[in-house]
């Protein structure tokens, strides 16, 4: 399909459909298991339960911070939200429309969905094509969507400048000629090239030095305002997540452990894993150096997760009930939920609140 000159205008963001109260993205019961093959005939011998029943809501214009154990399924969740992977189960509703629908059933087609949701990947190197210059990389998707080459190039230069890389110096370089931090800024510029509504940022600043990190965070805040963006922000840096997020979701081994407004999570963490996570933040003061990690023990195996609560094998508060039943989400205060028996009234856990008569 050749785009006519009239089509070659700037890409614009898709319009709002459901109004401000409609969440931008609602996900229920998301599941992704990866088969493990083995033996002589490469038969499936087990599955990695990478994402195992995740519910999440991303409201319009907010930043949802996602934190959790390495390997708990954050990147897999991100790839599912992007629909780079097909979920095994679960439903996704984008601005009121079911994702992956068709004309008969209603809903939003994957092709349209994918333009409105963009991602910045964790591995900045592997996600850039080594044979394309920086400017070609950023201009690639807009060109595919019918923007003229000249305009796509101009736009790529604007975006380079916006992420703090002088186009004259960098536009014609190849990915291997850049530092890790410089490559990550290219990834951010590329994700914004299609004017998306939702941007999923998988560790977008972890490769950057602190002054560039501050610049990129300021930039992300500006871009969000300017283009009306919504972010899902995955990071291991708890200070950064606290700074940028409106709400926070804590994952552990393929499940949501706790979710709530950022102040609640940081000031009143309810799940023992969240507490351990917050207590593990390194200290800049060498005289307060730690000698014992707050959390010990091996992270359990997602192939064969523990019965009941998945955190129980490392949890300082675990009791018999924790091995018997999986803890449902307990509602604590408005929008603050934790999946732990110790905060669930009537769960049978010694620390659980009594049910009000």
């Amino acid at each position, binding site marked *: 399909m050749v785009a006519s000159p009239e089509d070659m205008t700037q890409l614009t963001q898709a319009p709002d459909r459901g109004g401000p109260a409609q969440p931008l993205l609602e996900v229920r019961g998301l599941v992704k298991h990866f088969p493990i093959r083995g033996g002589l005939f490469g038969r499936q011998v087990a599955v990695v339960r990478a994402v195992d029943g995740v519910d999440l809501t991303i409201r319009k214009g907010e930043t949802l911070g996602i934190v959790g154990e390495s390997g708990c399924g954050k990147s897999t969740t991100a790839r599912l939200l992007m629909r780079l992977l097909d979920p095994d189960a679960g439903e996704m509703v984008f601005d009121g429309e079911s994702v992956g629908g068709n004309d008969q059933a209603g809903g939003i087609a994957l092709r349209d969905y994918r333009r409105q949701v963009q991602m910045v990947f964790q*591995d900045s190197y592997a996600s850039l094509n080594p044979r394309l210059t920086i400017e070609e990389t950023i201009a690639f998707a807009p060109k595919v969507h019918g923007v003229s080459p000249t305009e796509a190039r101009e736009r790529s230069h604007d975006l380079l400048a916006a992420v703090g890389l002088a186009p004259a110096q960098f536009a014609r370089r190849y990915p291997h000629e850049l530092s890790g931090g410089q490559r990550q800024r290219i990834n951010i510029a590329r994700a914004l090239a299609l004017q998306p509504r939702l941007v999923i940022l998988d560790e977008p600043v972890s490769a950057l030095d602190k002054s560039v990190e*501050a610049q990129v965070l300021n930039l992300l805040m500006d871009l969000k305002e300017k283009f009306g963006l919504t972010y899902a922000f995955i990071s291991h840096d708890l200070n950064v997540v606290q700074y940028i997020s409106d709400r926070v979701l804590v994952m552990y081994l393929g499940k949501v452990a706790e979710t709530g407004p950022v102040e609640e999570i940081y000031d009143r963490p309810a799940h023992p894993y969240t507490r351990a996570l917050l207590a593990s933040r390194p200290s800049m003061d060498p005289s307060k150096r730690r000698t014992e990690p707050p959390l010990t023990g091996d992270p359990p195996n997602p192939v064969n997760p523990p019965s009941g609560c998945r955190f129980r094998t490392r949890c300082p508060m675990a009791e018999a009930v924790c091995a018997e039943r999986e803890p449902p989400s307990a509602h604590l205060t408005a929008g603050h939920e934790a999946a732990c028996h110790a905060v669930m009234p009537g769960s049978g856990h010694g620390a659980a609140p009594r049910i009000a008569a």
Partner: protein
Amino acid sequence: MSAALKMDPAAPLVRARDLSVRFVNRDTTVHAVNGVDLDLAQGEVLCLLGESGSGKSVTLRALMKLLPKQAKVGGSIEVAGRDVQAMSERQLADFRGGDVAMIFQEPMTALDPVFTIGRQIAEAVQRHEGASRSAADARALELLELVQIPSAKRRLAAYPHELSGGLRQRAMIAVALACKPKLLLADEPTTALDATVQIQVLLLLRELQEKLGMGVIFVTHDLGVAGEIADRVAVMYAGRVVEEGPVGPFMAGPLHPYPQGLLGATVHGGMRGKRLTTIPGAPPSLEKLPEACSFAPRCPIAEPACQQGVPEARPMGPGRMARCIRAVAP
């Protein structure tokens, strides 16, 4: 036997003088490292901080002679008493992974995608220690357990792409430790880990470093990480070390305006809703060799004299150095 084993215990493990690295292409030259002096004692942990693109990874690679051909390396590099620049390919093969090991910034580029994790570790052990295959396999399992990879036995058979970022990073650490190196070069090895695992890995590295008497150069952007494990800190800007000193006094008050800006830009609790302080401007192009203080165009206290030549490394009290004509010793 490797020369390192016969070293005088007081001899420095790393001694680099006036190290420079230029990348020369058809139409451009990038002056990535411009006169770096580095000293590391045996059993010491040095954290290398600095601007992204300031030459930290290139410096580490130079210490292992792991740079591409178009890189022109100048100055002298001694590691474990040996002249790295003068080593032959044969000697380098023994040296890397034997005396010196590296944990890379991007594990996927260092792990071989077509071999299982177990094979890659065992391979390294066999190559450097001439161990039998079964001894090497047993050691691979031991190493995966050492770096606390869950269900280590099963993960021996995993391919790199089957592991999460954090597990890959631990696998890399296991590969690096396979031959009990004297010097470990770690390029942001904990950036991909969650806080609970990060602190475990830091404590683990610190423990192994003390136990094996290993020297470590640790690149990080996280001042918290430096606070947890560094003995000394060196900060790079535009291919030079602009400040260096023991970690405590550095954290309490850096002397050079660049690290001062860096500490000021660090995000911490209670900054929500506020615009973050950044260092205005952008780092200099490295296409020309800087003839003045590279930080001057962005420096809040620059004066005309800052444009007159590259500032000398000035001693600033016990073990401290700053390359700034305006820095005052505390």
